[in-house]
């Protein structure tokens, strides 16, 4: 389990969480390199289809924040 | 008189009030000089954690 590397698809709102992820970088916070970010104009843009599709393409987790 | 009127405004202070004045003026066709004594704009609001009543992040 310890060397398991999950694949996480992250949908981040341009105006808040995407900016927060930028800020984490500015602050040099370190975190595991397992998620890939898709920037969306607003979390309202997220349709359930995206989440299902992410799982279908092998995501171990989906992260939506906004 | 009118030909002597300048189309620019000096705004002293880059806090929330100064920034809003500057934005309104610039968006309405005036050149703005925004003066701030520190090295970044934002003022006191940038130091706040959250704002009520919505508890939004002040930043």
């Amino acid at each position, binding site marked *: 389990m310890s060397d398991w590397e999950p*694949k996480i*698809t992250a949908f981040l709102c341009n105006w808040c969480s*995407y900016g927060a*992820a*930028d*800020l*984490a*970088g*500015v*602050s*040099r*916070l370190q*975190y595991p*390199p397992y998620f890939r970010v*898709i*920037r*969306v*104009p*607003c979390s309202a*843009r997220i*349709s359930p289809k*995206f989440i299902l*599709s*992410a799982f279908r*393409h092998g995501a171990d987790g989906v992260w939506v924040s906004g | 008189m*009118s*030909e002597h*009127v*300048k*189309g*620019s*405004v*000096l705004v*002293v*202070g880059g*806090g*929330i*009030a*100064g920034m*809003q*004045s500057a934005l*309104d*003026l*610039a*968006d*309405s*066709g*005036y*050149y703005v*000089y925004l003066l701030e004594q520190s*090295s*970044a704009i*934002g*003022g*006191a609001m940038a*130091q706040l*954690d959250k*704002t*009520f*009543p919505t508890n939004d992040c002040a930043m």
Partner: protein
Amino acid sequence: MSGKPGNFSAEILKRPRFVDVEKCIACGACAEKCPKKVDDAYNQNLIKRKAIYVEYPQAVPLKYAIDKDHCIFFEKGKCRACEKFCPSKAINFDDKEEHLNLKVGAVILAPGFRAYNPAGDDTFKYGRLPNVVTSMEFERILSATGPSQGHIRRPSDQKSPKKIAWLQCVGSRDVHRAAHGYCSSVCCMYAVKEAVIAKEHAGGDLDCAIFYMDMRSHGKDFERYYNDAKEKHGIRFIRSRVPTIEPVDDTGDLILPHVNEAGEVEEERFDMVVLSVGMETTPEVARLARNLDIDLTEGRFCRTDTFHPVRSSRPGVFVCGAFQGTKDIPQSVIEASSAAAEAEVLLSAARNTETRRKKEILERREGNKTPRIGVFVCHCGINIGGVVDVPAVRDYAATLPFVEFVTDNLFTCSTDTQDTISRVIREKALNRIVVAACTPKTHEPLFQETLVSAGLNRYVFEMTNIRNQDSWVHKDAPDKATEKAKDLVRMAVAKAALMSPLEEAEVDVNRRAVVVGGGVSGMAASKALSGQGYQVTLVEREATLGGQALNLFRTWRGEDIQENLAAMVKSVESDPLIDVCLNTELGQVEGFVGNFKTTLTCKGQEHVVDHGVTILATGAKEFKPEEYLYGKDPRVVTHLELDRKFMNHDQGLKSVKAAVFIQCVGSREPQRPYCSRVCCTHAIESALYLKKINPDAEIFVLNREIRTYGEREYLYREARLAGIVFIRFSLETKPKVFVDGADLKVEVPDAALGHSVGIKADLLALATAIVPYKDEKLARFFKVPMNEDGFFVEAHAKLGPSEFASDGVFLCGMAHYPKPIDEALAQGQAAASRAVTLLSREKIRVSGTVAYVNPAVCSSCGVCVEVCPYSAPSFIEKGPFSGKAEINPVLCKGCGLCVSSCRSGALNLKGFEEGQIMAMINEV
């Protein structure tokens, strides 16, 4: 500063930054290497920063600066570590002070405030007891970017406190020592907020107690917040002034003795104490005011008057924010726009004379052809290249479908790289561009401009973030970071391949404004617009202009309202650009921002007005109560009725032996849980006036709390000194009013005395609530929301107080929230200033990122129409697709809510198409 309104000359000293902002890429290498630690003022000196620094991580501009007073090089002549490690050669130790001479038409002063420093005050032992902190320090302690990443720790031992006390009015409402007699207006609410957030951060077992004199929650939605703090969050509110703070040996804990409401002395132990410090004008600002020859008030704020709330005593110099008087964020934002409006009126002859226009470059029709993608991968000095294998990412990009060109750059954002990108686009006939670099939030516009300069559409661009969200956060895993960068580039390329050029919708703007409501705010808005040459149709439902101000006697500053109001009405009526429509209401409204078509109905006659913007200034009215014998006994009057007596020089007032004022009649009650904001000040001012014309009268003000915010507090003090008696009651112990024989009697339990006080009153003035008209028709016409109390809901409680979320519709005056004349007037001007940002353009051009409908698939369910906060979707009325949805691109903000809500898949969002996002998901 010299010169006159319209043409000033100002001498400015620009201090050196020692960092070239053009070159600095804010990588932070300099600060990392800088050996000198300095107290971090942004974090209230709770932690250290370096001598080369950015003010805070999200600072604008995000460029470093050297603190000359602490830099080792400036102190000792050597070091220059920052210079050595700066990858972009941005350090410039030779940077010099500059003296600038600016020629400007007007000046707006927004210098702000500083927090009161309680160090000189023995009561609080601030500076000696480490766990006594100021509220500004506590803000930083709460903040995720603060010294403890938002975990609440007390300074002495870094333990998480279990009990925190807030002490209100530190430096405010206090005429002793260096403190100030005025109320700082904001401390009650920020203390409540800090307590609520602290409990949220710390979980359930944190006990928060606020020691206060009067809780001043007089802003919009503040009373609800206060009630929730009490009832839902369990914050304790203790009405008592704490005379001293005593340490408990060396535990770090603190004892607060205080007198409770029953008059007994109690002691309570806390882990930490927060001092709710007030606002004050700095000596530097006071000096600046003297230099500029500007009058200050007793509290050292810029002197203004009620009918010119943002004009300083010097013509052409305007003021806003905390320097105009203590105030919160929304009021500062309102005044800021109001000051802008005043400057715009003064300088309207010179509009657009000093601004510059961008050169337009013709777009080539490349976008719809087969994708030819160019990928630019940035090293960002060593910021990306030091972790991610940039050449490997570049080579990988070259293998991706449709990629025709790849390269890597030391700094993709540099000016010479822009020239290269522009040249390559033309040479290689590229029609989609991907940049893998830092964050699009700061750099997307720059690259889009480069695309435009090369004749491409700005929307055939995708940026992916391999710095902030990759190299910076995976420093210790370079292989994984490189892998992630490749994935991100692959995702970006997949999206880019599906992109097409987007059009930005344009609409012409009709230059006329319709202002609904002819009270002070509506008139102020109209004058601010006509003063800039715009035509205004001012609609008033009554037969006269003036609104509620017609019923008012004097302002809290003692100014005569009718005299000033009459002058204002006259100037509006005689203004050739203002078309005043009395006895008129709105019958029908069509259209949207830039192009409204409104039908006005006046005495059965209809006429249609075309206009570009609308300002709602519909006001509010006095609540007519059913309690306290109102309407049953002639001695019981409302405040407006009392003002009428004052205006009529009612002789009866001179024979009044005892007068009683009852506050919060209909306000702060369960059915109307908001504070009407103006009544406390109005009661005190009326009481003082009554005392003046009838010095022998005994006057009682029965109140739940006195809310004389800002410099209005002086009136409260004056009233107490004049012998006016203030008796407090609560919602449970409301006064009883009854007739005993011929006498009108008021009985109220007095907690301080421990028994009821009976008063035989000749006059009973009720501070009745201010209630909105709840005009649902108007709300429907302009698709604007109302809150549960019936006041209109602005775009943003803090940052957009004078506008609606729907474009082209603005808000001011009491339709927003109860407010006094100066604030209503300022907001009228503010609404006008916001409106002029639209009216001053010939065309409104909107983003290309908007939703669109495929009508063939639309099922006409109406979900999109319902969910959109901006009223962009509507049903098509005519033609083959009648009944189907359509999106007005001018109103659409591109959030995508309608798209993800559409059950039939008829909607899509340009720039974030279903297919594009799916392609990215595929490539994760």
